[in-house]
């Protein structure tokens, strides 16, 4: 029997108990729970109220079904907390579903971060073997591809240096080089392209399309609509744990972008964060206009103000707070970065409210998204949230002259820069 199915998912669901992810459970809690449990059970029996009982659970994923053929590249998109990461975690067997089944035909490899398994004390050479083997490569495979990996990473001279002495750029290059040489039949990729510079991201994208050209199946989760559009034939849109639309990538992206997600003030406690949050936890974002009024609509060449509430968890050396303004397709346009503008120093534990002000916002009319991050300068993001909110830019008086900027914006231009014009030569006929 010949089959071309790579992944078949049926009614997949994952339920989390609220608070299950909280760290540092103590034995004391468990013991008090156990003591309370019989009483709770009696209470449940008496009230026999199922709905009441369900309130302490959330479904991160519910009734999701789809099929993916071999060789397809499928994008999974959706807002924060829509269940994208949960889906990837179930498919890569890191966590188990609460209900439903998933059938996977073939060797599966997951790329949920850059540098899985890297150990800072070990050398580049040792880490290639360590990370490769954790990601599922056999030793002979790594040996075969070793030279390619080193070449791809461009770190030949530092091969026998401990990875902790690498610059973050070198680290990412080596880590991705290992991951890129992973060659399973099915590859799951999550947001790894969000790191590194533009050139590096391009290299990563190229590698992923190479993999798909070899007839491999790829599931690609991203906030970057351009990347999804470029790489994927099909896409699936998740919304609050359920599948909302499935279809051609363009179709699904349009459904996703047509939703109005703009909010002037966002409580960040309720949306998922990426990063380790060892030092900082982003609490709240508020967008304001030049009069300090909360808004989601900004006028070209007028002020854009953002207030960022941050909790510093432990002494944070060289703290850097940043805000990314990206196009609705997820391409970064502006990085507003505290340290670049001279606000630098260490943070002590406590709550802080930062304000960043752009005196004149020079974006073309359209919809833009905001990402937030906090890190120790030179290190990876300690706390990072993608797509915190959206805002619109409308046409304003930019030049002091009448313009057709709004018409040009439709053709995809995003940033305005001023220019001066004069005639320097004129020949009469």
């Amino acid at each position, binding site marked *: 029997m010949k089959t071309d199915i790579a992944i078949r998912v049926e009614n997949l669901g994952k339920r989390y108990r609220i608070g299950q992810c909280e760290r540092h459970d103590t034995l004391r809690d468990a013991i008090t729970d156990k003591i309370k449990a019989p009483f709770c059970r009696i209470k449940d029996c008496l009230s026999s109220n199922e709905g009441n009982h369900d309130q302490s659970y959330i479904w991160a994923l519910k009734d999701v079904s789809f099929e993916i053929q071999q060789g397809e590249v499928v994008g999974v998109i959706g807002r924060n907390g829509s269940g994208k990461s949960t889906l990837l975690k179930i498919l890569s067997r890191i966590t*188990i579903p609460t209900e439903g089944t*998933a059938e996977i035909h073939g060797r599966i490899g997951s790329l949920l971060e850059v540098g899985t398994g890297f*150990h800072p004390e070990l050398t580049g050479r040792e880490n290639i073997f360590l990370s490769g083997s954790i990601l599922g490569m056999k030793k002979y495979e790594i040996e075969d591809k070793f030279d390619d990996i080193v070449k791809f990473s461009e770190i030949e001279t530092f091969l026998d240096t401990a990875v902790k002495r690498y610059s973050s750029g070198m680290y990412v290059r080596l880590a991705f080089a290992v991951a890129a040489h992973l060659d399973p039949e099915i590859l799951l990729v999550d947001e790894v392209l969000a790191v590194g510079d533009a050139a590096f991201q391009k290299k990563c994208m190229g590698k992923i399309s190479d993999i798909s050209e070899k007839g491999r199946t790829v599931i690609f989760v991203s906030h970057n609509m351009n990347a999804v559009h470029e790489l994927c034939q099909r896409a699936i849109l998740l919304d609050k744990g359920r599948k909302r639309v499935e279809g051609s990538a363009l179709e699904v992206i349009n459904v996703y972008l047509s939703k109005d997600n703009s909010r002037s003030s966002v409580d960040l406690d309720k949306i998922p964060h990426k990063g380790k949050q060892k030092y900082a936890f982003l609490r709240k974002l508020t967008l304001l206009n030049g009069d300090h009024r909360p808004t989601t609509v900004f006028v070209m060449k007028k002020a854009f103000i953002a207030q960022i509430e941050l909790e510093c968890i432990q002494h944070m050396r060289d703290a850097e707070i940043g805000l990314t303004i990206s196009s609705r397709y997820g391409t970064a346009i502006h990085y507003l970065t505290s340290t670049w503008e001279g606000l630098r120093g260490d943070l002590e534990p406590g709550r802080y409210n930062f304000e960043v002000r752009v005196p004149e916002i020079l974006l073309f009319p359209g919809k833009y998204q905001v990402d937030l991050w906090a890190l120790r300068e030179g290190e990876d993001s300690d706390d990072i949230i993608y797509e915190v909110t959206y805002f619109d830019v409308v046409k304003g008086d930019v030049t002091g002259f009448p313009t057709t900027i709004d018409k040009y914006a439709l053709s995809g231009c995003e940033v305005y820069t001023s220019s001066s014009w004069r005639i320097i030569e004129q020949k009469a006929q």
Partner: protein
Amino acid sequence: MKNRMNLSTNRRSDMGEEIPIIVIKPMSGWAPIDLKELWAYRELLQTFIMRDINVRYKQTALGAAWAVIQPFFMMVVFTLFFGKLAKIPSEGIPYPIFSYAALLPWTLFAEGLSRSTNSVVGNANIMTKVYFPRLLLPISGVVSPLVDFAIAFVILLGMMLYFGFYPTENIIWLPAFILLALASSLGAGLWLSALNVQYRDFQYTVPFLIQIWLFASPVVYPSSLLPEPYRMIYGLNPMAGVIEGFRWTLLGTSPPGSLIVVSVVVILAILVSGAFYFRRMEKTFADVV
């Protein structure tokens, strides 16, 4: 959460290639231990063990000498205080070699126990990003101290020559006692590593537990100090049988006898129950850790 993943790995011939089919679905209850899968992942186990060994003495000035320094100075201290001052009997054997021969299996056990207890929590970053049989982590925690053991063992051989002990045919049992030490430490490590994921209390309990356990084991004294009916009960401490057996194979002290029988039964019970408990808890590791 009472669900777990059921994996049935079928093999089907398709276009001449073998394509494994993995079915992911929820199931409740106890999971069997998938030895076939563990075997398939043996290379990764080797990688984890090598990593633990490589990392151990990175950026230390004395390096692998630490493997000797620790048991050696313990022996010196024990000899001074327990041997000379307290005059604890040592079955007619010079006290230094009496305690050092016990410290070797003890250190192997204690190191393995503390490393395997922290193995799951310590590798949380890997565990939440990629799948592999979680059992590999405590196993590598238990196996990697064997290198330290081997280095410290060379010193023991030197001491045996110095004090004039020559191994008898009993020495063929030595590997069995090393295996028993590993099995005790893995058994306890499986329980504690799984519990440590849920309750970090165990992180603080283990160093304390190891200290108490040291004095509850016949390291500084011989188990012959106990009268016969109590010796059987003493065997409930699995390390009692292992340490006495160790001395017997190398130094020719009195054979462990009934002690070892009780210890082996206890070790097997802890190991099997620990493996099943670990398997039962591992499906929630990534969600809880």
